[in-house]
Each structure stands twice: as C-alpha cells, then as structure tokens.
C-alpha cells in the first residue's frame, strides 16, 4: 500500500519532469543560442551554459535596432489596446445580456459564439480586400495598428463575452438593485459594483486576449507591411534583413517571449481567482 503510493508519486514526478523538459528545452536552447557569439554557434553543440564565453552582444545589437524597436512598440500597443478594448466591450455586452430582457437572447448568444467557429484563414482574402479597398482618401486600414486592433476584437470578443457573461451572471442581481435604490445610474452601477466584482474575470479576459494578439501571426503578416508590423511577424523578416544571424534571431525570440511571460506571472493570481469565481460569490 505505502509502496504503491510511493511508486505512483515517483511516476507522477517523473512524468512532470519529462513534460517540463519537453516544453522548456527549446526555450533553454534558444537562450543558449542567443548568448553565444557567432563563432561559438558553429562549434560543438552543448546543452550546458558556458558562462565564460557568454555574451550579451546579440541583445545589445537587437535592442538598439530601430526596426526591432518599432515592431516591439507596435506589438505592445496592439496587444494592450486590444486587451483593454475587448475587456470593456465584452463586459458591457455581458452586463446587458445578463441583466436586461433582450429579444432572442439565447439565439444571440449562440450566434456570437458561432462567429468563432470558422477557421480564421477563411476570412483572410475578404479581410485583405476590405483592409486595402476601404479607403478614406489616402488612408486605409491596411498596415495600421488600428486595423489590427479592430480585427483582433472580432476574434477575441466572442470568447471574452462568453467568459464574462458567466462572471456577471454570478454577481447577485440584488446588488444592482440595491445600488439603483441607493441612487446610482446604470453607469455608476457598472463602474462601482459590476466592474470591481468582475475584476478577476476581467484579468483572465485581458491576459488571454493580450496573449492572442501578441502571438497572432497569420493576419499580422498579411495585413501589415512596414509601419504596423508586429514583432511576431517581424521575427523572420527581421533576420533576413540583417543576414541569417541566428544569435540575434534567438535574442529577438527571447525578448518576444519575455513580455508574455511577465504579464502571465503578474496576473496568475487573478486567473486562479477568476476560474473559481462562481464558488465565492456574495
């Protein structure tokens, strides 16, 4: 009996070690590449870090590269604006859906979800035509950050809406009613009651949409060219510009990973709270 538990513990432990290795090894490898000089790279491959030969010059080169700076800025702006916009819009939609009697409510909800069912690639061509064809004088959505932000809203809203709907439904309706009787307008109820109580859910929504926008490749690579290019898409292109510099490529990759990891680490606490939110209402 005791031995059985020990074995199963050991097995579980080994399993997770293996899983971690599987996911983390490529990252580690990339890190190794990013801190080696060009000459070292083509030497004998090794999984170990040679501290003496370690160099930050790839990072220095990348960080001082204006193209990299621009792409990074684009990515940060697009992902953050998208996350904020989606969270706010989805919260408003979820609130309306949860609290007001809307005609065809259930169908509407289902319809919103179906928007997410077709593979995104299906929309690529129509979207490209829309982005280039719809013009205001010289201006079109093509190669603009606002274009990407709006587009990502389309893909992120249904999921965010679905998630927040559950969160808002779990907030007792009496709280809204008490606030109304206390003299609050609908907007005040939203900002002083619903928003603070939905915060864990909003954190989850925000991070997931942020990561989606940060990592999105397909649309970013087709619907932008120079000005609005994001770091994810710029990654490959960036290297061809400077020659196939594997060290710098790895450094860019590491730097692209960093913000996502940072954001995740920051809101991890909220995500756990968000996932168990229904259980602690009231």
């Amino acid at each position: 009996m005791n031995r059985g538990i020990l074995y199963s513990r050991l097995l579980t432990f080994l399993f997770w070690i293996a899983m971690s290795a599987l996911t983390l090894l490529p990252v580690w490898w990339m890190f190794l590449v990013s801190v080696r000089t060009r000459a070292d790279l083509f030497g004998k491959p090794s999984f170990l870090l040679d501290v003496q030969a370690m160099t930050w010059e790839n990072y220095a080169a990348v960080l001082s590269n204006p193209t990299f700076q621009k792409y990074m800025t684009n990515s940060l702006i697009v992902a953050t604006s998208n996350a904020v916009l989606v969270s706010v819009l989805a919260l408003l939609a979820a609130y309306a859906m949860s609290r007001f009697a809307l005609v065809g409510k259930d169908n509407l909800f289902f319809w919103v979800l179906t928007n997410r069912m077709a593979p995104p690639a299906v929309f690529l061509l129509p979207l490209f035509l829309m982005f280039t064809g719809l013009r205001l004088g010289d201006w079109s959505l093509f190669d603009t950050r606002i274009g990407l932000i709006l587009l990502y809203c389309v893909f992120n809203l249904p999921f965010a809406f679905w998630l927040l709907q559950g969160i808002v439904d779990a907030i007792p309706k009496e709280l809204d009613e008490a606030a109304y009787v206390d003299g609050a307008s609908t907007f005040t109820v939203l900002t002083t009651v619903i928003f603070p109580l939905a915060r864990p859910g909003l954190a989850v929504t925000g991070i997931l949409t942020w990561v989606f926008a940060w990592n999105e490749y397909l649309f970013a690579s087709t619907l932008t060219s120079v000005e609005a290019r994001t770091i994810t898409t710029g990654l490959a292109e960036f290297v061809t510009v400077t020659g196939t510099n594997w060290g710098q490529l790895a450094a860019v990759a590491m730097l692209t990973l960093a913000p996502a990891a940072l954001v995740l680490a920051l809101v991890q606490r909220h995500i756990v709270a968000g996932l168990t939110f229904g259980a602690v209402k009231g």
Partner: protein
Amino acid sequence: MSRVTLEAVGKSYGAVTVLKPLDLDIADGEFLVLLGPSGCGKSTTMRMIAGLEAITTGTLRFDGRDVTALHPRDRNVAMVFQNYALYPHMTVADNIGYPLKVARVGRAERLAQIEAAAKKVDLTPYLARYPRDLSGGQRQRVALARALVRSPGVFLLDEPLSNLDAKLRVAMRAEIKHLQRSLGVTMIYVTHDQIEAMTLADRVVLLNDGVIQQVGTPDEIYDNPGNLFVAGFIGSPPMNFVEGLGAGGRFAGPGVTDLPCPGTGKLTLGFRAEDTAIADTGRFSGTVYEVEPTGEATYVVLQMGPHRVNLRCDKKFRPDLGTTLRFDLGAGQALFFDTATGQRVR
C-alpha cells in the same frame, strides 16, 4: 418623509396576474406591514414601490406626486433586502456611505454622516471591516445603516429578519420599531411572520394570492377578521372553526346547539382558544383528544365532530383523555362566516 398612495396598482407577467389592482393609502410616518403567505405578492408590491418592478396598471404617488414611471434612483426610497445585498468589495463604512457617494456628498460630510448612522445601529467598531467578516445580525445592521444614512422618504424592508436566529430576531424587531418611532419615517415592512406583523405594525395589510384580504390595526385584524382566511392566518394557535347550519337565528353544529347567530344556511363558527372558559353548564362540548402543557398555560385539544379545536386553560388543568368537556364563550366572542364564500357574517 412621504405619504405613499397606491391607486389600483396591479401587476401581471404576460397573462399571469400576480397582483390584482389594489388601493392603499399609507400615511406619513406610518409603520405598515405587508403580511401574507409565501408567493402572495408581498415582495412584488414592495418592489413596485421601490421602482425595481414596472407597475402594470394603476398609479403610485409619493406625497401626491405621480412617481409611477420614475427610476428607482429618483424616488428617494431606501430598501433593506432579505439577503441584505451588501457590496462585498466595500468596507462597512463604504457600504453605509455608498448612497452619499453616489449623491456626490463631500468626503468630510460623508464621514460624519457615516459615523452618525453607524452609531444609531451600534456599528461604530466595525466600520473598517468587510461584510464577509460580520455576523448575520451585524450585516443586517449595516443594511439598516445604509438605508438610514440619507434620510429617505420611505423605508422599505423585505423580510429583513428572516435570516436571523430566533433570539436575534426578537431583539432586532424591537430595534427596528424603536428606530422607526424615533425617526418618524414611513416604513413599509414585508413579512410572512404574523407575530412580527402584530408586534411592529401601526397597520397590517394581509395579502393572499395577490388580493388584499384585510387592512387594519393589529387589534382589528385579530379581533374582527373579515373572512376565514384572515381568521385562520392570524393568531397562534389559529382561530378554531366549527362548521354547521344557521336557521332562525340559531346555529347548530357538532358539539354546539342553540347558539344565537346572524344569517342562515351553511355557516362556520369561529372562536379563539383564549376566549373559551371551561364550564359544566357551557353550550359547547367535545371529547378530550390531547392535552398540551406549554408552561404558561395548558392547551386542551377537543374533538367536536370532525373538527379539532384548541382551548386555552389554566396551567394546572389536566383532564383525562376521552372525557367529555363543556365550555362556553363570552358575548361577542363567537364569530360567524359564510362557509361557501368565507366572508364574515355579522
């Protein structure tokens, strides 16, 4: 302070009518209790007064002003919800101060008023706590303080004591009544507990199935019920009923003969346990079914034909089961109802 007038106010959900059009005039400073069994429409009535539920028909007035279509925030009412509906993410102080904050009262002024309201309900030591760290009774007080803080025209309380244990309920009952007296506010109080209604109310409105059964002071409702429903709902134990026939000004039924009565045909005699007096020459008789001592009195359950009735007797009284007892009522203590319609016959 407000006078509240309901003019033929009714409520239906689609084809389902949950509240028949009802008229009610609630005086300024009155303590009115809406009483009735579960599902009779008490909460609906109160929520319509608060503006949380649309009024289907009729007109609602505060001090003569038509407020039927007014948003809840513009009605200047305060409401205490059954589950208190405290804002869980705010401290007690912020909860109490919320109506003031919404009304953009300045910080210093707000703090002073929060202090004052908290003091009225003995909450001062708890102002920094969150609702989850309070007991049921304390939460109840927070809800009261939140209602008190901005001197509303009308106070609405929907079963505010039903989540408390019996002892606390009695204590809070007195506090609420005292508060209402000292502030002189109009208070509308919903409950399904008739003891609560009797002890608190200036006037009781007894509802059943969305229809007002009777409106009156607790004494009127207790002594002069207008129909069988009221008679059976009010009082503990409830009024005793014996069905029989009235003819020629005399009532006859199982265990009852030759009792003067108004009306003719199928009648139901009603009388209260405490109005009975054991007497060998009494006009009523039955066999002892059970004896229930309560400490302050002994209740004897008598079988009269198909009916069982309660008599309140001396605490030492212990009749043997199965023996026949005779008892009598004083003048005016026998009430009669039409058995078919349930209406009082006078």
